[in-house]
C-alpha cells in the first residue's frame, strides 16, 4: 500500500531529506529540464495578454471575495447541487471524507474505482482508505498512473512524475504492465497506458474526482485537465463522487472567466487546457446517474481564521510557484515529504495540518527569493506567509542553540555599546581559528557554511572604526 497519507505521525525534516535529494542527479536533471520548459511557456503566454496583471488582480480579488463569503456561498452551493439531483456531504476532516467516499462507493456496488487526478484526494489519503476497505483505486491520469505503478508519491502538483524520464517509465511499464517489447517512444508509452485504462473506463461503476472550482449560484462543478481521461471518468461512470476543499467555491459563473484564463497559462503555459468539464448535478440519459459532492474542511476554517495566513486559501493549485522555485529545482518534490510540495506546500501544509504533525522545518525550506510571488496568478505573498509560518514555529517549538543565539543577537543589536563590544570580542575570540584573514575552523552552526564556502575573518578595522579614525584626522 503506498504511503499517501503524507501528514503521518513522524514528519521528516526538510534539511536532512534535501541533503539526500541534492545528490540524485537524475531527478535533478529531469526537474531542471521540466522547470525550464514550463517556465518559458508560462512567460510567453502571460506576455500575450495585455491585461495579465489586471487579471491577476481580479483573480486575487474574486478569491478573497469568495473566502469572505463562505458562510453564504457553501449553503447556496449545497442548495443548487441538491436541486439538480446531486447529494452534498460535509466532511470535517480526512477521516470523515474517506468514510463518506467508501460508503457511497460500496453502496454503488463497486470493487474498483476510477480516479481523476486530484490533489485533495491525495491530501486525505483516499487511495489507502479505499484499499483498506477492499476497494481498488485506479489512477487514470498518465503521470499519476506512473506514480501508482511505481508505488511512489507524486513529486509535483501538476506533473506528478516530473522526477521520472521516459526510459524510467518504459522500464516501469515493462515490469508492471507486462509489456516486454515496449520502447521509450512517448507515443508508445501513451498507447500502452491508453490500452490499460480503456478497459477500465468501460467497466467503471464509480469514479472519484477533485474539483478546480464550484460555482455557488449555479451548483456547477469544474475540472480542468489535459488528457481527457478525467472526462472519461466524469461521464462514463454510473456514480461520480467529487471531493472538494470548501475554499474552492466561487460566487458567480463569470468568476470562471478569470480563473480559466489564469489557471492554464500559469500551470502548463497553455492558453487553454485541452479539457474543461463542467457539470451541474445529474441529467436523465446523460452522464452519471448519481452525483455526490463531498465538501471538505480539514484545516481550511482554521486557515480562514488566521488573518495573515488567510490568502493561502486563494490558491488555485496552478503550481507556477513550484516551477519558479530555485529550492525545488535542487531537491525535487519528494524532499518535502508532503502532498503539496514547494513554496505553496510550505505555507499551506502547516495551516492544514494544524499545530501537530507538521515538520517545523518546512517554512524554512526557502531562501525567500520571491520568485514564487512574482508568478502567483492570485498574488499570494508567499515569502510574507513563509515568514509568518516561521514565526509560528519559533514561538511554539524550542529553538535550542539557534533560538538562544538569535535572542542574544537581538539584545546585542539593541545597544550600540553592546554591538561595538561584540565586534571587538569576535575579533579576539576568532584569533585561534583565523589564518590569512580567513576563518579556518567551522564549528557549530558554521559547519554548514564551511561545507562549501570560505568566510572572511572580522578585519583589523571595522567600518565604524575607520570612520572614527577619519573623523579625528
Amino acid at each position: 500500500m503506498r504511503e499517501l497519507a503524507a501528514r503521518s505521525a513522524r514528519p521528516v525534516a526538510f534539511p536532512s531529506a534535501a541533503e539526500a535529494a541534492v545528490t540524485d542527479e537524475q531527478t535533478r536533471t529531469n526537474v531542471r529540464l521540466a522547470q525550464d520548459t514550463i517556465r518559458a511557456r508560462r512567460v510567453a503566454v502571460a506576455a500575450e495578454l495585455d491585461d495579465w496583471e489586471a487579471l491577476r488582480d481580479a483573480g486575487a480579488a474574486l478569491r478573497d471575495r469568495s473566502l469572505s463569503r463562505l458562510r453564504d456561498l457553501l449553503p447556496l452551493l449545497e442548495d443548487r447541487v441538491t436541486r439538480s439531483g446531486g447529494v452534498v456531504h460535509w466532511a470535517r476532516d480526512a477521516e470523515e471524507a474517506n468514510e463518506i467516499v467508501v460508503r457511497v462507493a460500496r453502496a454503488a456496488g463497486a470493487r474498483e474505482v476510477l480516479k481523476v487526478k486530484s490533489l485533495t484526494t491525495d491530501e486525505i489519503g483516499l487511495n489507502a482508505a479505499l484499499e483498506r476497505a477492499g476497494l481498488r483505486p485506479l489512477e487514470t491520469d498518465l503521470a499519476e498512473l506512473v506514480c501508482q505503478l511505481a508505488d511512489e508519491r507524486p513529486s509535483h502538483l501538476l506533473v506528478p512524475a516530473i522526477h521520472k524520464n521516459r526510459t524510467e517509465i518504459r522500464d516501469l511499464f515493462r515490469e508492471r504492465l507486462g509489456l516486454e517489447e515496449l520502447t521509450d517512444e512517448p507515443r508508445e508509452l501513451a498507447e500502452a497506458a491508453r490500452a490499460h485504462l480503456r478497459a477500465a473506463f468501460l467497466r467503471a461503476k464509480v469514479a472519484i474526482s477533485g474539483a478546480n472550482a464550484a460555482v455557488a449560484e449555479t451548483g456547477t462543478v469544474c475540472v480542468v485537465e489535459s488528457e481527457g481521461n478525467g472526462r472519461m471518468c466524469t461521464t462514463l461512470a454510473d456514480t461520480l463522487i467529487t471531493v472538494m476543499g470548501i475554499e474552492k467555491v466561487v460566487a458567480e459563473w463569470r468568476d470562471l472567466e478569470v480563473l480559466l484564463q489564469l489557471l492554464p497559462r500559469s500551470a502548463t503555459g497553455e492558453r487553454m487546457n485541452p479539457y474543461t468539464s463542467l457539470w451541474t448535478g445529474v441529467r436523465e440519459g446523460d452522464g452519471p446517474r448519481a452525483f455526490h459532492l463531498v465538501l471538505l474542511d480539514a484545516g481550511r476554517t482554521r486557515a480562514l481564521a488566521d488573518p495573515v495566513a488567510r490568502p493561502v486559501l486563494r490558491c488555485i493549485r496552478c503550481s507556477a510557484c513550484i516551477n519558479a522555485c530555485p529550492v525545488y529545482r535542487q531537491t525535487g518534490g519528494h524532499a518535502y515529504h508532503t502532498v503539496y510540495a514547494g513554496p505553496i506546500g510550505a505555507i499551506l501544509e502547516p495551516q492544514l495540518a494544524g499545530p501537530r504533525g507538521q515538520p517545523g522545518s518546512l517554512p524554512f525550506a526557502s531562501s525567500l527569493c520571491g520568485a514564487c510571488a512574482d508568478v502567483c496568478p492570485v498574488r499570494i505573498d508567499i515569502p510574507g506567509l513563509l515568514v509568518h509560518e516561521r514565526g509560528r514555529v519559533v514561538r511554539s517549538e524550542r529553538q535550542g542553540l539557534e533560538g538562544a543565539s538569535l535572542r542574544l543577537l537581538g539584545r546585542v543589536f539593541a545597544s550600540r555599546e553592546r554591538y561595538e563590544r561584540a565586534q571587538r570580542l569576535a575579533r579576539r575570540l576568532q584569533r585561534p581559528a583565523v589564518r590569512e584573514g580567513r576563518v579556518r575552523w567551522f564549528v557549530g552552526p558554521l559547519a554548514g557554511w564551511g561545507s562549501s564556502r570560505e568566510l572572511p575573518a572580522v578585519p583589523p578595522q571595522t567600518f565604524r572604526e575607520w570612520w572614527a579614525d577619519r573623523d579625528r584626522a
Partner: protein
Amino acid sequence: MRVALFVTCLADTLAPGVGRAAVTVLERLGLGVDFPREQTCCGQLHWNAGYADEATALAARFGEVFADAEVIVTPSGSCAGHVREHVPTLVPRVAHVAARTFELSQLLVERLGVEDVGSTYAGRLTYHPTCHSLRLLRVGDAPERLLRAVPGVELAELPEATECCGFGGMFSVKNAAVSSAMLAAKLDAIASSGADAVCACDASCLLHIGGGLERRGSPVRAVHLAEVLAG
C-alpha cells in the same frame, strides 16, 4: 544635500571596504555623508528568521537613529528592501523614515538622476541581480546602468541571472546542502559568463558567492557595486 549612510551590520563588521567605497562615491558626487554612530542592524535577519519581536524592536530603533536624516542610503538591496517594505508595517510611526531610505544604485539613478559617477575600471564584469534588490525593492536596471557608464567595464551576460544564489540569510546554514547546490549552479553560470569578477549590490550575497568562488579556487572575484563605482 546630506545623506546618512546606513552601512549595515554585515558590511560594518565583515566587509568594511564596501562602506568605504560607498563613502568615496557619494563624496565624489559632492554629497555630504553622515554616519550616525548609534546604528546597528535594521532587523532583517530576525524578521526573516521568524523572530518578529526582535525585528520590531530593531525596526523602531532604526527609525529613531535615522529620524533626523533627510536621505538615508545603504549599500544593500536586501536591507533597503526590508526597511522600505517591512519596517512601515512593523512600526508605522517610523514609516516616513523608511520612505527616505534608498539602496545606493536606487539613490544615484532614480533619485539623483546620475549614471556616470566618474569612476574607471579595467576588466570583464558580470552582474548578479540579488533577489531582494530585484523582487522586493525593484531597483530594475539601475545597477547595470551605473556599470555601463563606467569606462573600462566590459559587461558580460550572466546565464540564468535572476536565479537565487542560495544565500538567504539563515537559510545558508539551516539548509546548507540546498544552499550549496544553488550556489554551485550560480558559480557555474558565473564561470560560463567568462567574466573575471561578479558584481552585485548586496554584501551578504557576495560573502556567500565570493566564499564559494574562493573555495573552488576560482580566479573570479566578487566585488560590490560600490567598489566598482569607487574605482
